[in-house]
């Protein structure tokens, strides 16, 4: 008999900060470095504000992204305006990275779908984990078919990699040369389940290899590494070679405001990751490279003001009208729906008892 190796795969990890050649990566203009930091601060402030608003009863449930700002702001920084984004539900920092309207982001978290209207090439958030990966694959397939030279970045998490739709998406993307990037934020936990018990794979990135597409791991708390990985992946995806990026990061907060993460992870672990807080690390990087200035120092206050203003505006928006309950199910209301709507209007707005 013979027994030959017919396939061998490997996964590389990209890091930039604190490596020997970190100074060899000045691909950005100085002002761009500062802009990245400002976006991360803005995202962090949004998170804090949303958390407070939830405690005050203005938001019902909120999914914090604290700790994942470098991953989300980094990947969206390298995307062009004609690239598409397919978010999961913890991507508020990515929306901010894409320049989304802050008031509308709050509005959506306050349960008003109008916050997801006119969001350009950013799809509305998808709550059921992994299902959106098929949209990432499909949009990427469509780009290839139309011979466009853009790409789509879809967000997903470590938990989602156990779902069938995740695997079907990678498979379709590979078979059809989709212009798709699957950006997996491995934040170590799917609610309470640690990634070690989610999968027996050593990395998430290696799952790509089974589908004949490239997989790469990146230090997701190192925004420069994310940018490097993102730039390379986008170049490939735009040419019909899909890529899976595993951004190795950590959810510093609870899963959502309904969760209590002290039940399943200890303080020590959280403290360790707080040391690796992406904002802290990038701030130190900027200081070490003489890019830190007074304006950046003051930006925290400015960001807080911007966020407060956006939240105030969102709270002032009246709830949608009753008609809105019915008017967006079909392009034109079928007769039976229109009839039902009229009955509701009569009941709730007719002035009777």
């Amino acid at each position: 008999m013979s027994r030959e190796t017919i396939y061998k795969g490997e996964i590389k990890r990209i890091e930039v900060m604190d490596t020997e050649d970190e100074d060899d990566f000045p691909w950005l203009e100085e002002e761009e470095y500062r802009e990245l930091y400002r976006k991360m601060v803005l995202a962090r402030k949004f998170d804090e504000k949303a958390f407070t608003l939830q405690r005050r009863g203005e938001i019902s449930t909120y999914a914090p992204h604290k700790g994942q700002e470098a991953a989300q702001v980094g990947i969206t920084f390298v995307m062009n305006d004609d690239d598409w984004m397919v978010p999961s539900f913890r991507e508020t920092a990515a929306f901010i990275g894409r320049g989304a309207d802050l008031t509308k982001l709050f509005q959506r978290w306050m349960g008003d779908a109008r916050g997801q209207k006119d969001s350009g090439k950013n799809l509305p958030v998808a709550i059921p984990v992994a299902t959106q990966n098929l949209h990432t694959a499909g949009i990427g397939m469509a780009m290839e078919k139309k011979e466009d030279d853009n790409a789509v970045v879809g967000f997903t998490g470590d938990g989602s990699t156990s779902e069938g739709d995740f695997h079907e998406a990678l498979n379709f993307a590979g078979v059809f040369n989709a212009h798709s990037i699957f950006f997996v934020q491995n934040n170590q936990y799917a609610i309470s389940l640690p990634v070690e018990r989610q999968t027996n794979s050593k990395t998430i990135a290696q799952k790509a290899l089974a589908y004949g597409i490239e997989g790469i791991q990146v230090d997701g708390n190192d925004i420069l590494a994310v940018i490097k990985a993102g730039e390379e992946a986008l170049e490939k995806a735009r040419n019909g070679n899909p890529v899976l990026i595993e951004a190795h990061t950590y959810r510093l907060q609870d899963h959502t405001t309904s969760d209590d993460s002290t039940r399943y992870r200890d303080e020590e672990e959280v403290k360790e990751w707080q040391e690796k807080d992406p904002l802290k690390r990038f701030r130190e990087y900027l200081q070490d490279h003489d890019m830190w200035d007074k304006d950046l120092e003051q930006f925290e206050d400015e960001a807080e003001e911007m966020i407060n203003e956006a939240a105030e505006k969102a709270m002032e928006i009246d709830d949608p009208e009753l008609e809105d309950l019915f008017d967006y199910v079909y392009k034109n209301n079928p007769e039976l729906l229109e009839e039902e709507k009229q009955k509701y209007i009569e009941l709730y707005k007719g002035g009777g008892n």
Partner: protein
Amino acid sequence: MNIVEAVNEALKDEMKEDKNVIAYGEDVGEDGGVFRATKDLQEEFGQDRIFSSPLAESGIAGTAIGMSLYGFRPVVEMQFSGFSYLAFYQIKEHASRMRMRSRDSFEVPLTVRAPYGGGISALEHHSESPEAFYAHSQGLHVVVPSTPQDTYSLLRKSIQSDDPVVFLEPKKTYRAFKEEVDKDKEVELEKAAVRKEGTDATIISWGAMMPLANKVAEESNADIEVIDLRTIYPTDWETVIDSVQKTGRALVLHEAPKTAGFGAEVATKINEEAILHLEAPVMRVTGPDVPVPLYTLEDYYMPDKKRVNNKLEELLEF
């Protein structure tokens, strides 16, 4: 042409007319689909526009949603409706909700085709009638044609629709009969058809049960009206209610099991809108409340002349 030829012809004409219409699914390319519904289309339109995909129903529906969002009008095939449940989540929770979720900013002009129904001695899971699941998935059109003309006209309308459509094809009658198809004839979504006028009772049915409904009505001594619901949801209640107000008696006939089948909805609607015109309770002839059996028991499962005649007699004599 017959029903399966009408599917093929409608697809062909839509693909000719709109370059954004593409079609895919398991074996739909070179093979033309296991029922040959997409026969020869790849030769005509090339594999860029019509192709076989990996074997994954959720993958097919989910990627088609992505393609729709980017401007295509995909027509995807579920090889058998009994396998479409693997795609149910994508269809129900994403295709049907994208417009609502984005307040009209995104839409999903997707058509999901699936042969449905029993009576062909098929393997297990190859004979289901899932129309009630899809009818209960707000935001979809659910179409079940019964004639070549309706298949042609309604499939074209479905593909042109800016909302997602689940198009269930009666595979038992795919090749059962032929008729002349007028390609210019428009059939609207949301419109039922009165197949035979009558005054004594109304039979309401759809899809592969229509030949049985028509036959029983023809052979009956009473004057039976027959309605082909054909677009299950959104439902054309006006046609149903008008008819029952006239006849005072109604029988719903479908293949799917009785409990929570779409017949329950029809009966309730008649109660709500026409109870004072009723001479008898609304009656149902359906599959029994069991899974579709392996085929040695299928003849007992499928509604037949005996069951419909008995029930019709009961209805008329009530």
